[in-house]
């Protein structure tokens, strides 16, 4: 201990204290503060950049999710529209076919009616014709003196042949 105290050089202590204090002050002003500040700035910059990248990623994910949702909705809409269209089409077809059937039925019915009436009319005509013919034949027979039975028969035949139902 005595040796230490004896060795102690006051001049060295004085200069060391002075120079070191100066060194601390100088370095603090010209080195440590700018260095630490720029390092900190860089660190916060990196942190911010990382955070914003993370945000962008999240946003991207959100966007993608939105897109997916939109796509899904669109698809559903399309599906429902298609379904509706199909339904309409089927209904239309069904309607059309039933209408056509009805029409056809009514046409057929009216045709049948017409045929019936024609037939009736034709029959009526025929009846009238037959009646007239019968009267004609009867007149002729009566007019012609029927000599023999053969002649009579022949006459009827020829008559009938003439009549030929047109």
């Amino acid at each position, binding site marked *: 201990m005595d040796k230490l105290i004896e060795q102690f*050089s006051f001049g060295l202590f004085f200069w060391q204290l002075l*120079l*070191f204090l100066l060194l601390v002050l*100088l370095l603090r002003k010209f080195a440590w503060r700018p260095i630490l500040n720029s390092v900190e700035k860089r660190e916060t910059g990196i942190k911010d950049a990382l955070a914003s990248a993370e945000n962008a990623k999240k946003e991207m994910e959100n966007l993608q999710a939105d897109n997916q949702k939109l796509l899904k909705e669109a698809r559903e809409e399309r599906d429902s529209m298609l379904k509706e269209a199909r339904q309409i089409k089927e209904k239309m077809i069904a309607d059309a076919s039933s209408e056509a059937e009805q029409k056809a039925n009514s046409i057929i019915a009216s045709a049948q009616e017409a045929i019936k009436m024609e037939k009736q009319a034709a029959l009526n005509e025929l009846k009238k014709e037959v009646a007239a013919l019968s009267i004609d034949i009867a007149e002729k027979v009566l007019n012609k003196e029927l000599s023999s039975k053969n002649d009579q028969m022949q006459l009827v035949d020829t008559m009938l042949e003439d009549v030929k139902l047109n």
Partner: protein
Amino acid sequence: MLKEISTKAFALFLLMLSFGMNAQEEVHEIAPQHEGDKDLKTEIKDYINHHLQDSYDFSLYSYEENGEHHYVGFPLPVILWDDGLKIFSSSKLNHGESVAEVDGNYYKVFHGKIYKTDAQGTINLDEEHHATNEKPLDFSFTKNIFVIFAVSLFMVLMFASMAKSYKKNPLPSGMGRFLEPLVLFIRDDIAIPNIGKKHYRKYMGFLLTVFFFVWIINLLGLTPLGVNVTNNIAVTFALALMTYLLTTFTANKNYWKHIFWMPGVPWPMKIILAPIELLGTFIKPFSLMIRLYANITAGHIVLMSIIGLMFIFKNWLGSSLSFGLAFVLALLELLVAALQAYIFTMLSALYFGMAKEEHHDH
């Protein structure tokens, strides 16, 4: 014989160069007046002593020729306060060999210190070989101060240019690439965990400066320049004093409360604890001072002794063994240089942290 010894001494110095080693003997031997009758051990001891003590001039090495000392280096200013400021070149002292005459006063170097003498340079000794001459107040710009000054200048230039490089580019470039991790290490692993995020910025200037200063100075001590600053108790005392003052003057109420009225213990204990705690505040920086000083000094003495062994063993086996041992020890000293800087910074940060600790329940 004389020639042989001085060549050996020179060879010792060259080996010291190759190891980048130096040391300072704690015990100052009385320098023998006659060179001729010295044995090798004393020669080595004296040589180490003579060249690696703090000196008034910057000399890299010396050699002997025709019985005269020749020094390679340059003188530094000697500044004394002895009834007025006295400034003169250390070349006047002639490495302690002659008496300097300044304004009618005579000064002579004895054991690395300047004493006031008469014109003949008589040094009066007491029984324990201590000089009884008057000692003027010595503010000389010695070798160590020159090194401190040079290192400070170097640090300012280096770190200011590093700071400037950040203006152009946010990424470190050049030296900054090596220095930035160290700066960040001190911030993230020393300052923030010990002091806390809230207050650490105030102390960063001191912590960073002390770390790099001690480290660079320690490393310089391992170079062949023959400088050894941190094994001067005055230097470590100045550093530790700064830690003490910073701790004391930035301490908050909670710190003083823990010293004078320790919470959570019964009152008789509080009275007993107060002086112990108060003493503790002085012991903490004192241990910082002693630790740095003793580690560097002890390392240097051990290494120098082992290098000196090379010359005492006069056979190839012993010499090469001590060569290997010295090599390993030199590597260890490189580690110690960084470790002591780290420990000093770390413990300073720890003490600052104590001074700034917020109140919390025990």
